């Protein structure tokens, strides 16, 4: 039963993902990709569980390694996205005056 529910969740999330990113201007392609990439760092949650749930040394070590990598992804990803967007925003408010 649980697998079914999980599959439902998968299906709905996929649809939602498609609907959300219907039309994106070219200027946002890179930041959006980067932002989505940061979200995919959610695997850090899995890593934390693996590292912290005390399932044995292998699991812990692998988990810790996973936490490291995933954290790089999450922290770096969000920060880099924010940098890109803030630059973008500045340009935007610059031009707003003329239009």
């Amino acid at each position, binding site marked *: 039963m649980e697998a079914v529910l999980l599959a439902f969740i998968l299906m709905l999330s996929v649809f*939602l993902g498609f609907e959300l990113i219907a039309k994106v201007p070219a200027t946002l*392609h890179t930041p959006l*990709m980067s932002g989505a990439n940061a979200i995919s760092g959610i695997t850090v949650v*899995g890593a934390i569980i693996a590292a912290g749930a005390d399932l044995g040394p292998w699991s812990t070590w692998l988990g810790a390694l996973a*936490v*490291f990598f995933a*954290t790089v992804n999450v*922290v*770096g990803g969000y920060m*880099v996205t924010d940098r890109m967007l803030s630059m973008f925003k500045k340009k935007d408010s610059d031009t707003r005056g003329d239009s």
Partner: protein
Amino acid sequence: MSLEVLGGVYILAAILFVFGLKLMSSPATAVRGNLLSSVGMLIAVVITLLSKEIIDYRYIAGAAILGAVVGAVAARRVAMTGMPEMVALFNGSGGIGSLLVGWAALYSDDRSAFTLITVMISILIGGVTFSGSLVAWAKLSETIGSGAITFGGQRLVNVLILLALVVCSVLIVFNPALTFPLVFVVIALSVLLGVMAVIPIGGADMPVVISLLNSYSGLAACAAGFAINNTILIVAGSLVGAAGLILTNIMCKAMNRSLSNVLFSGFAAPGKATKVEGEVKPITADDAYLILEAASSVVMVPGYGMAVAQAQHVVRELGELLEANGADVSYAIHPVAGRMPGHMNVLLAEANVPYDQLIEMDEINPRIENIDVAIVIGANDVVNPAAREDENSPIYGMPIINVDYARTVFVLKRSMASGFSGVDNPLFFGENTRMLFGDAKQSLSSVIAEFKS
């Protein structure tokens, strides 16, 4: 803390991710969107740390702090121009993360077929993402040559790797005892597959590849979620997976390529790029929009068809939208376009196109190679390359606007019919030509609608 509370908080995080993504698809709200989604991430991480499953914080703390520092420094340091490489690297670390989570899950007690399958998938996708991202990074930063690397039998090798992966996975699932030797094979092969998939792709396509790998890394997280039975991983992972795929598709279209072309280029027989002559490539208004949206210089070439369609007003409107979008827009007027001298001038003046955007044939031709998109609006004879190249053509010798030298050409007309002189037009079969069939006014309106939505 009960599982219900954990789940509830995960739902909250998922909601934040959804809103974050939504807001990120509009320039005005993108910053806020990114912030929301990062808050979601924070919440998910914190609640996980607080959950009763977690007993030992030492390793986590160390790894997390190290990772955060590395990530933050990298994000700070990188030059604006180096962004795509950086994203590739981050993406790669996300991929290896998922691979490791899947791997670690093998040490839990649950060895059900479902778990094993999902673990295999998370290792496979994670591995491909990891090595693929690294190769993409290397190509972009020119650490390795950015050209496409191909060799004979590449296709065969790829197929063999895939086969081996499937065999190993099946063996593991049916005989969990074999897990430990074989999983290393799976990991190695996955990583190899990632390399193989990306090396034959040229550097110019890397942004698309990264976007695709980004989608993969979402799927990897999703698979890992299935493996360890964690909903937030599934939801966030599949959101990103789907969003990334759509985004990849959009990017492909803006580059005038098909997704399957990028997806399977590594598996296609290399080095035999055959040019199909005489093939007409129609395009839809929304695909045209995507290309125009990414263009930074556009020239409109109106002809008699614009007059017939009375499309002058929408032409101007599209021009204004393109300008607002940051593109250079001009209107190239061929001296005999239309059916009377100055026909195009009358119409464009009526539509209030500023005089200084009207340029003459002799002015546009020398710089047409640098034009991203030339939009031919119901013109035919005046852009017919036969006048330049085919000595036997009745219109040979007439000077034309060389739209065929532009990077991309859109031709808006209703059919393949010829123009005033009744001569066939090889432009329509050009490599870089896309035919947008239909009444010019309607076609342009559709493109404009895309712009405005």
